[in-house]
């Protein structure tokens, strides 16, 4: 590389490793007691103390094993003005640890079990570019992003694992796949809800047997962020954007305000003004006399929750040059900052951003925060 003038730095990394997952229930060493029948003390009947089963033994538990291959490149070019890294990985998880349904005679509906295998493939990219650096004007731009595709490759007997709810586990599908009866709109003849059955025929009968994979999952394929840091004389302007794409969930809040059985009880959406009224009406809102279907496992309120958000924008002014010589203050800066100022999304709920869950139901939105500040260094 010594004679190469294009790259200032170029590094190739490759690794392969096998490891046990010590965070199977979320935290470190989470599942260590899952092989035991355990009891705990709790409040009993009539102000007494009682023993209850607190853990039901799964004596067949194994390590969840990750096999990961990673290839990466670190580079910098153009006199180190552009630097970054690219990584691609393939990670296979065997003896995948997930909740598995058990009969209620066990006193619970699910236990944690090793139930299959999962594959994750993806790429991560990170870039830093010092675009302008001339005298009292400088701009640097940064971006990072990831792409991840996962697929469940093995389940017990190849059968789906259905713990109830809007997502199920199935071979060949990503984890968190939404499994729903496809809503086919409103019957213009009578204002009733229509659905597609499993073969794609329109029917007015709702049955959970007609659920299909709708190629949407509650985990995103793309995530990342970008922004710039800039200075001009004593001014600074910094921004940071973040985005999540190809992610879906159920909009339960919208379901409530469009629920025809709740019109006399709670606030309703103005979309109900478009409700079906007479034969021939073509509309997406069923007749107000229809039953509530918002809690049915349909895709009617499953929406694209992708978003791009201006996470942070800060305008600052450096007062350093106004300070008198010999002042105990070495640096002083005033700034105004806005967090979560603008969000672009198709999501019709309050806030597309959330932890990864199958549905929103009046969840508290991320707040916008405005800050005016003074930084003083002594």
């Amino acid at each position, binding site marked *: 590389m010594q004679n190469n003038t294009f790259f200032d730095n170029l590094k190739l990394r490759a690794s392969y490793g096998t490891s046990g997952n010590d965070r199977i229930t979320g935290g470190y060493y989470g599942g260590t007691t899952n092989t035991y029948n355990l009891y705990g003390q709790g409040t*009993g009947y009539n102000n007494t103390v009682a023993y209850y089963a607190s853990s039901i033994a799964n004596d067949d538990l194994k390590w969840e094993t990750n096999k990961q291959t990673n290839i990466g490149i670190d580079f910098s070019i153009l006199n180190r003005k552009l630097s970054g890294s690219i990584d691609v990985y393939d990670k296979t998880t065997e003896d995948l640890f997930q909740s598995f349904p*058990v009969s209620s005679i066990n006193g619970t509906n699910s236990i944690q079990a090793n139930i299959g295998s999962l594959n994750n493939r993806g790429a991560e990219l990170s870039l830093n570019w010092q675009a302008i650096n001339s005298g009292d004007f400088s701009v640097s731009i940064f971006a990072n992003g990831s792409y991840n595709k996962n697929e469940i490759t093995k389940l017990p007997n190849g059968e789906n694992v259905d713990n109830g709810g809007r997502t199920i586990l199935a071979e060949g599908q990503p984890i968190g796949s939404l499994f729903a009866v496809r809503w086919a709109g409103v019957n213009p003849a009578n204002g009733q809800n229509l659905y597609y059955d499993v073969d794609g025929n329109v029917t007015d009968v709702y*049955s959970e047997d007609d659920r299909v994979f709708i190629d949407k999952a509650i985990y995103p394929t793309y995530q990342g962020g970008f922004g710039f840091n800039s200075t001009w004389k004593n001014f600074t302007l910094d921004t940071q954007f973040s985005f999540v794409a190809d992610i879906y969930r159920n909009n339960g809040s919208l379901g409530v305000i469009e629920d025809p059985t709740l019109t006399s009880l709670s606030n309703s959406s103005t979309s109900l003004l478009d409700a079906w009224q007479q034969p021939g009406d073509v509309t997406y809102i069923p007749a107000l006399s229809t039953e509530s279907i918002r809690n049915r496992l349909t895709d009617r309120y499953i929406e694209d929750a992708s978003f791009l958000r201006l996470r942070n924008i800060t305008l600052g002014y450096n007062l350093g040059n106004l300070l008198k010589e010999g002042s105990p203050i070495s640096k002083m800066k005033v700034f105004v900052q806005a967090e979560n100022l603008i969000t672009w999304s198709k999501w019709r709920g309050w806030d597309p951003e959330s932890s990864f869950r199958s549905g929103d139901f009046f969840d508290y939105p991320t707040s916008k925060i405005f800050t005016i500040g003074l930084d003083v260094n002594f």
Partner: protein
Amino acid sequence: MLIFKKMTMKKINNLILVCGLIFIGFSCEDATDIFPEGNLTSDVTFETLDDLQLGLNGAYARYSPEDDILINSVFTDNCKPGYDNGGQEINFYNWALTAGDGNTTSLWNSNYRLINQCNRVLEASDLITASGEAEQTELNNIKGQLLTLRAIGHLTLASYFTTDYLDGDALSIIISDRVPGTSETLPRNTNSEVYSFIANDLNTASTLLSDQSDNKYVSQDLVTGLKARLALLQNDSSALTHAQTLIDAYPLAGQLQYLSMFLDTDNTEVIFKAARTSGLVGGLWYFTNSAGPFIEASNSLHDAHDPADIRLFANINFNTNNGGPSEPENNIHLINKYPGNASPFLSDIKAMRVSEMYLIKAEAQVNANNLDGAAATLKVLRDARLGTSTSLDSYISQTQAYDAVLKERRLELAFEGHRYLDIKRFKDRLNTGINRDDLDCVSGGNCVMLPSDHRLTLPIPQVELNANPSIVQNPGYAN
């Protein structure tokens, strides 16, 4: 020198090898048998009678008549949406009943949790040897209570999930007589299997239970009452005998005693009640902080009362506490069965009262076509509730007599977890299902459920269908 050196090396090598093997031996054991220090595994949890008592306390706590109270009120003609309703229980009130229904799932889960807890403590109790007669009596008493609670769990489930009480071959529920393995998936048993399992538990409990008079705990009288209920489901004439035993043992409450009973200050006719120290029962229908009702008593229930009937004032709130008084002229009828005494809406749940035994007796008399006997039995109850001598009914047919029994049960046992099951049991006798007053179903719900409607049997919950390929769903519900 060289030889010595070699031998030494060999010895050292051997020593290292031996040490290593010992070490491996120890470390293997350490790695595979990490005993969870300080954790309560099954064998150290239940070592003494006191431990079993703690397990029994847990079984009592798992007993959850709240599920019955909610289902039997909201789903039937005893309720309507309250003026403060913002969607609470509306789907259930509107009879949107599928395998995913939350109330049905809760009923199924909580009764199997009760049964599972009983089975755990019962299995532990088999490993404990009593020393001396006093300990043996205590051990027996604990086992007797566990068997009774297990019978309650099975009897409750069986009442909701079978299509036909009188068909011994019809599918009932899963009998759970031991702590199951997590991979076990059992099919539903038949009615006759379940009935005889419950009867067996109750009979064994009778032989084990000590005599005690605290009606917050299982007693011989409760077992007798459960036998009466079990026999009634099967149209078995022994219902009358068991009911009569309790009628002879407990007086009916007078009018003032009746109101005091629901304030938890009178126990004249209470055979068994579930003590409640937290968990507001009134919260089934009220926002308890504001006393705003999201579910109210129905117009039809209100209108079914004679104005002099003390039950009107136990069922519907005409006092100024808990958001009252009701304003029937403005369609406001506040449920008053769990008014609370020390704190609002916190009441013990009267799970069995002797008045129910009069009603069981009357129903058994109608079954035996003793219509005059049934009329006389109902009169005793009505006289107590109206505080005066009422006229004796005269029935011209069994149907008319059944109708009278059902109406009396509605007034006497409103909001106590019976109405849905009563309609289910009487639907073929009277050829009627649920009939709501027009005023009670204005919010878009249907007013009439035909006796043939599949929803008069609850669906096996989706959570069970997901886990258990051996289970069969009830007719009319999608899997």
